[in-house]
């Protein structure tokens, strides 16, 4: 018998249909993967089970959990289920915990609420749960506050809260999307163990096909609020019977076609970083003490030839973004020099940096956060033009913006729109248009596709490849995602603890990693082919 049974579930919010005739079931001890792109209704399905939907939402159909009709349950009945029989883990560990309460309080709270245990008893159980998720007493006392923990550690706390009372069903909504691959592998292992330990059912929601394939026994693929295909994971993904399944699988392994580069390596490097170090002063626990400082970037040297595409990969917190900020002259190195087109840019004033700024642009991860919502596209895309020597006239500016939009595959009529009128992928095109409008020689892209769905990601990668060929722009891609590095870069630099520990041709490094850090990244990275093969083998 199934633990969770969803039949004919339809959902509307206001007048907007969100879900249509969803069918889904989870058995005890089973992992059900729910896959789909953003807006496909994955999270709404989960929130329906939890009955934590927005006020205007209306659900019809049947949702049965452990014999209880969820859609007909009262709020009191739901409160008794939530956190006790059904636990939920959310996507964003950085904001999922209350910043003003200790982790111990937050784990113990649910235990006390449901079991009416005494404070001491609840804290004792919370302690055991925190130990269980890999946060041992010695390093992580219960009195720690969330801001004192890293993203991966916080996600463990969230899992501890959700699993504290050994729920029959755990819903994990993109539990690892915000984490780097090594942390992701650890969290997935933890979830797998918890499932095996107590025959818990797991509804794993993700847009990452490879992650779901590694984890799930069965898979349900959603699109526009409807189930496209459902079934055994290995069979569904190896046969790729449904066209949408095939499209998703192909997009997630997409490699843009790129012509090999001509021998450009011998010329003068475009960017040269020599012995760059960046120290941050330590915290001050009291007025007279100072904790030892942190060396975010440690004696890094690298060079990028014109037109080359280079990946800088590493786990979160390894110093890659700090290094990028120094290359962009947004931060000053403690020691070492950075030169761009043969000119030193370290220690230059803002005015002296203008010519360098013109030839060096940036694309950020979050296409939502990097635009002023109150300005029109024309103004936003034209922003970098102020670094030009000669200020363009109105007409010239208009012409340049139109051209840049055309180059990234947008229409020049989009100029009069506001950022919110675009989808995520289109917005990332806008930030690329903004980056290329000054005809830069180098674009630094910080996780440019990690916030995007697989099919959009494939299109944006194609765009990057095309601009590289057409305009000869060199790239520095900062990413923890090895598929991105493999898809679009010629060389790769592996960064660990502020140092570059390995470098070489992308394929060679990723196929035969030498350093510990590179090996860890490669083994932890989910890979769809590998995952399908393993599943097929397991099932014989």
């Amino acid at each position: 018998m199934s633990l969770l049974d969803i039949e004919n579930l339809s959902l509307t919010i206001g007048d907007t249909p969100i879900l249509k005739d969803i069918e889904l079931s989870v058995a005890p001890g089973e992992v059900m993967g729910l896959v789909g792109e953003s807006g496909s209704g994955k999270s709404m399905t989960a929130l329906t089970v939890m009955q934590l939907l927005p006020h205007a939402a209306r659900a019809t159909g049947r949702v049965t959990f452990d014999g209880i009709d969820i859609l007909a349950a009262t709020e009191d009945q739901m409160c008794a289920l939530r956190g006790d029989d059904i636990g939920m883990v959310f996507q964003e560990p950085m904001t999922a915990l209350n910043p003003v309460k200790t982790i111990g309080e937050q784990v113990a709270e649910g235990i006390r609420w449901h079991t009416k245990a005494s404070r001491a008893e609840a804290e004792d159980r919370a302690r055991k749960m925190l130990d269980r998720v890999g946060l041992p007493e010695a390093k992580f006392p219960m009195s720690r506050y969330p801001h004192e923990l890293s993203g991966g550690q916080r996600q463990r706390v969230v899992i501890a809260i959700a699993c504290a009372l050994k729920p029959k069903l755990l819903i994990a909504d993109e539990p690892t999307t915000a984490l780097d691959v090594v942390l992701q592998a650890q969290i997935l292992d933890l979830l797998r163990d918890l499932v095996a330990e107590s025959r818990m059912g797991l509804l794993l929601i993700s847009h990452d096909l490879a992650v779901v394939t590694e984890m799930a026994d069965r898979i349900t693929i959603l699109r526009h609020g409807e189930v496209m295909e459902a079934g055994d994971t290995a069979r569904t993904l190896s046969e790729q019977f449904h066209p949408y399944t095939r499209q998703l699988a192909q997009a997630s392994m997409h490699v843009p076609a790129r012509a090999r580069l001509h021998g450009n390596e011998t010329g003068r490097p475009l960017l040269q970083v020599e012995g760059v170090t960046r120290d941050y002063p330590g915290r001050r626990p009291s007025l007279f003490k100072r904790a030892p400082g942190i060396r975010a970037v440690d004696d890094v040297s690298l060079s990028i030839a014109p037109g080359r595409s280079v990946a800088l990969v590493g786990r979160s917190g390894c110093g890659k973004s700090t290094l990028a900020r120094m290359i962009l002259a947004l931060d000053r190195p403690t020691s070492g020099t950075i030169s761009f087109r043969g000119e030193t840019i370290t220690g230059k004033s803002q005015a002296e940096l203008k010519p360098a700024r013109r030839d060096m642009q940036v694309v950020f991860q979050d296409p939502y956060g990097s635009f002023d919502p109150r300005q029109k596209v024309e103004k936003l895309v034209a922003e970098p033009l102020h670094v030009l020597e000669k200020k363009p006239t109105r007409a010239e500016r208009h012409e340049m913006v139109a051209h840049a939009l055309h180059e990234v595959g947008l229409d020049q009529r989009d100029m009069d729109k506001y950022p919110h009128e675009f989808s995520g992928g289109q917005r990332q095109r806008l930030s690329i248009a903004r980056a290329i409008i000054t005809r830069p020689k180098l674009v630094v892209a910080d996780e440019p596709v990690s916030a995007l769905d697989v099919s959009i990601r494939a299109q944006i990668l194609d765009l990057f490849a095309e601009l590289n060929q057409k305009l000869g722009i060199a790239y520095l891609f900062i990413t923890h995602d090895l598929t991105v590095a493999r898809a679009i870069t010629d060389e790769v630099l592996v960064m660990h603890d502020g140092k570059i520990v390995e470098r070489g041709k992308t394929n060679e490094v990723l196929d035969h990693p030498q350093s510990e850090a590179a090996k860890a990244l490669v083994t932890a990275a989910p890979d769809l082919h590998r995952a399908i093969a393993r599943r097929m083998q397991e099932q014989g």
Partner: protein
Amino acid sequence: MTAYLLKRLAIALATLLLASMVVFAVLEILPGDPARLMLGMNASADQVELLRNQMGLNAPLAWRYLHWAGGLLSLDFGRSYTYSVPVIDLVRERLAVSLPLALIALALSTIIAIPVGLFSASRRGRAGDTISMGAAQLGVAVPNFWFALMLIYVFAVWLRLVPAGGFPGWSAGIGPALKSLLLPAVALALPQAAILARVTRSALIEVLNEDYIRTARAKGLPYRTVLWRHALRNAMIPVLTILGLQFAFLLAGTIIIENVFYLPGLGRLVFQAITQRDLIVVESVVMLLVAAVIAVNLLVDLSYAVVDPRLRSRQ
């Protein structure tokens, strides 16, 4: 935590020092000779000069500042020109009215505003929210003297529950004294409560959209419990800021209400002192208020740290 505390304390002391210099300097620059004012227009130049010497007005500026500032530290504020009594006695007498009044008004405003804010935020966009925020809008808009007059009409003239004005003094007993402060406190509290309720509501609405509220709900806590345990404390920072500002206002900005209720408070003392050019009283009361505002700000800063652990660990 200690570092945060010491830093805040140092900033507060530096601000106080700077403020005392500014207050002193401004009153030095103002036209009008206190000696001439005390002796009247008919006094001779010699008489004025004599008094100026007596009052130490002819001494060098720096010496006079130090003398004045030193006096402040030992609570010797000098003598009022017009009342001819030590300023400290005047202030003490008036504070006995103003301080309790401000505290009662502040307490009332908090007691009204926080539940209204919580109620409104939890019913955002529904009828309850619209009605209570409409009432709050009205509370901000209605002039408090008019509201005070209405209160007098209903509770003093019509129902005869409380006196219409005046202050019997604390010597008349706590009951009658509190009774005479009740209406003015309500009149002061209501507009403040309206502002505070709006701030509480908007801070809460922001917090209620946070992910950790969802996490708390997913634990199985009912909505109301989440509101009190998880949302309110996170919404406290803007609320505390406004409370600090309101206390400063309630201590000194109450002259209209003091006049309506005929209360001998600080506001009226300052007003009289200004019209009579009793600069030494003005100077002292202004300094006192500056000190009070700085002290309240310090308190607010410290309460931030109590509310939010992230501020404790930051430098």
